[in-house]
């Protein structure tokens, strides 16, 4: 009978109630967090993105070569020929990229604008470098940047996506899950800051391909400023100390090679440009193992002194390279003269 007290029913219910109560006690005691939540989840960050400089060049002056091309009748010189010539002068790409290497190419893809406007790495340069890396036996060549405009638009309109995929390189778009917090050792600004660490997975060589551009706040945007594109988050807060942060970027990731593309140089309205009148044909290209030296040379192309971009000096102080690029005995080569 439903209204009759049944021992069996009571025991069944008592057992069920005890199970619920015990589960509550068990969960509470197993997961008890006496300390409470920490103020922040910072502190477990990786130390930088890696040092990819050649081991044999440690504590030695870097290598550098500068190629000047003759542009005939306003036609842009062939970046691939210039690059090959410069690479040959610093020992050939084979000295840097060994068979089986996994290479990351850091381009400047900041803006969704056409390559002719010179605000981004020229696709011909990327195409040449990607193809040469593949030829040198690289097991993987990937290309990345965390640009300002929408990443898909940037890589498409600049021609960089096409240049990458047509030359055996993989395009890594800056997806959210590729960012992880990193800190620069001894750094003051880049502390537990999201950086594009996922793009470095398995990578053992880093090559920077950078245009030479005017930059009102920083003095100029070249190799070191290009590394701003490794940062995520609201990175613009660092513009308050732009020289300090670029000097830390020089420590955040140390490249194997830097290519500075001064074929066309953006003299005004940088770093966005937007008009052909902002550009000047300089027809120079430099390859260097030393990013600081490369940028010091770049300032010359802009007709500026290195003092106008204080981060160059700060990067040298931080041990990222030499301001006096001539101390590297750069080879000066002429192409097509």
């Amino acid at each position, binding site marked *: 009978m439903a209204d009759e007290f049944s021992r069996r029913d009571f025991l069944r219910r008592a057992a069920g109630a005890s199970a619920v109560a015990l589960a509550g006690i068990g969960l509470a005691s197993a997961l008890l967090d006496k300390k409470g939540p920490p103020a922040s989840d910072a502190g477990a960050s990786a130390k930088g993105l890696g040092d990819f400089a050649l081991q044999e060049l440690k504590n030695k002056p870097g290598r550098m070569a500068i190629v000047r091309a003759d542009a005939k009748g306003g036609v842009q010189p062939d970046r691939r020929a210039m690059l090959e010539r410069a690479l040959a002068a610093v020992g050939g790409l084979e000295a840097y990229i060994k068979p089986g290497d996994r290479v990351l190419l850091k381009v400047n893809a900041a*803006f*969704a*604008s*056409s390559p002719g406007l010179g605000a981004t790495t020229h696709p011909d340069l990327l195409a040449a470098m990607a193809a040469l890396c593949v030829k040198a036996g690289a097991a993987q060549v990937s290309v990345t940047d965390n640009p*300002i*405009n*929408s*990443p*898909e*638009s940037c890589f*498409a*309109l600049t021609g960089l996506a096409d240049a990458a995929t047509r030359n055996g390189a993989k395009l890594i*778009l*800056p*997806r*959210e*899950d590729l960012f992880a917090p990193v800190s620069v050792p001894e750094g*003051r600004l880049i502390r537990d800051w999201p950086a594009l660490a996922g793009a470095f997975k398995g990578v053992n060589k880093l090559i920077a391909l950078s245009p030479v551009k005017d*930059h*009102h*706040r920083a003095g100029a945007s070249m190799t070191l400023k290009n590394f701003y594109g490794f940062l995520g988050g*609201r990175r*613009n*807060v660092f*513009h*308050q*100390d*732009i*020289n*300090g942060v670029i000097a830390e970027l020089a420590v955040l990731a140390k490249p194997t090679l830097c290519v500075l593309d001064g074929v066309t140089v953006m003299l*005004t*309205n940088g*770093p*966005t*440009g*937007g*008009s052909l*009148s*902002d550009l000047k044909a300089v027809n120079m290209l430099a390859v260097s193992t030393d990013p600081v030296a490369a940028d010091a040379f770049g300032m010359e192309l802009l007709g500026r002194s290195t*003092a106008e971009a*204080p*981060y160059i*000096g*700060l990067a040298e*102080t931080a041990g990222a390279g030499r301001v006096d690029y001539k101390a590297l005995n750069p080879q000066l080569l002429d192409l097509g003269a």
Partner: protein
Amino acid sequence: MRPVLRIVNARRAAQIFFVALTLVFCAVATLGDGFGRLSGWPVNMILQMSPLTAVGTLLATHTWWPGLLWAVPVIALTAFFGRVFCGFICPLGALNQFTGWLARLVAAKAPGARGQALRARLADNRHSDWAAAKYYVLAFLLAAACFGSLQSGLFDPIALLFRSLNMTIVPAADSHMQALFTKPRHYASAWLLLAVLAAVLGLNLLRPRFFCRYLCPAGALMAVLARFAPWRIGKRDDAAHGECGACTLCDTYCEGACRPSGKLVHSECLMCMNCLDACPQNRVTFAGRPSAAGETHLPEPTRRGFVISLAAGALSAPVWGIGALADQGKNPLLIRPPGSLNEERFLARCIRCGQCMRVCPSNVIQPALGEAGVEGLWTPVLVYRLGTSGCQINCVACGQVCPTSAIRPLSLDERLGRGAYAAKGPIRLGTAFFDRSRCLPWAFERPCLVCQELCPVSPKAIHTRTFFEPIRFGQAQFVQAEGTRLSLAELKKPVVNLGSGDYYLRPLGSRMDTLESGLRRINACTWAEAGQTMTLDAAPDAKQGWNLKPGDGVEVLVRLQKPYVDAARCIGCGVCEHECPIAGLRGIRVSYENESRSGPGRMLV
């Protein structure tokens, strides 16, 4: 033996096809090349098939936009065969039907359960006078459209579905797959958009195809267009088929509740074809003759409600005008996508389908909740704090996908003011204004200049003037100098790196304010309580006024490049606002002043 290709199976196949097509169109409306991207797909086709959109914009603009020619075959089809669109094509109708079917699945095998379910189904599908409600909705919308306020998109089933899918389910699904978007998409008030879709689908628990029967103005319009349809559903009553046993199986499965067993209400027939399939005697036909048990065209009574709705719609547009939200009272943050018509003409065309918001590579086009007033609910508005980086200067995607040309399809030349458009200049969306109480260099003696750096216009619309200003707690006592190295005392611990290249030194009391007049840049600074050192960029020159004796004061200045907007060059793209490091209320913000679409009377003359 029933044939395999029954008409209901054909209907189901068509419904599955159009739902799938809708999902494909939602997926491929992503800017880019390749098969899975917006490269030739007619992503607006289903939207533009809706006769409500075509007729609504026709009444509001007195024109027929070419894209809406997709609606013409639908109108012709409806005129001859009735609401085929509702039964075979409409993807929201299909989802409604599916939900209603799912809710009425009979799981119990208990005796009598099936009979009970059939009786409940018969009750659910009984014809109701409430079916008239959708005609009131239609009358309201068309009357409002006649007065220039196109609200049809709020209720149009296709616009409703695309808007809901594209701004809620697609981004939520892709946040894990990342097949469509590199950066997670954000849409303001997405929850409300989903709530509306959930409500529309949930109502099917009350009655099958609730929205289609009682609310859908597109269905109502097609019912009116089918007034003279020669071919229609009907019951035969002839000797060859014997007498109708009044089993009401046709009524039981009728999705439109149009009463096929009795006096058939033609306007309500959704062309689900279930009656044709259900009749055990094959007495129901689709043919060019009236139904044997009689027929009527519209549900009754409707006239009074119809007139009231017409009047309400006709009144609503002028009353909205009194609010002046498209005019003097326009919200300063109401910034429309590039190519948008002026507010009045814009609201005569926008169906709030969300295609512009879907395709925008920057994700800055957002559904307006309050920005455009009640009248402009879910119309596109640019919210520069969201998305990747303002409105990209080299992009015209939104105007290219707009199904009704509320946003004109611009060429890049027209947008940028190049070539044939050089004299007109670029399309302006608004103007950026500095908030000097929030801007770092203006308010907090900190260098910054992100806005100037990223201004995409050449020459830049943000320019600077350089000032050297003494910083707070920047005074110290001179101890001694050794070339470029100065030893100091009494400097308070700095909160910034004084050696970062942005800080300068001068003797206290001097008026040096340029490098030429003797200011020295601090290249390095070390600080200890006991004493401080600074390395300057050049040795202090007595001739320039550096005659310091121990104990004399020096002061630190910060070099500030203070930004200004050149309103005549600003296009209102909002990159500056998006990138401003003041994360909350930005130090530079764009409002609509000087926008091209407003025509004469813009800010600058």
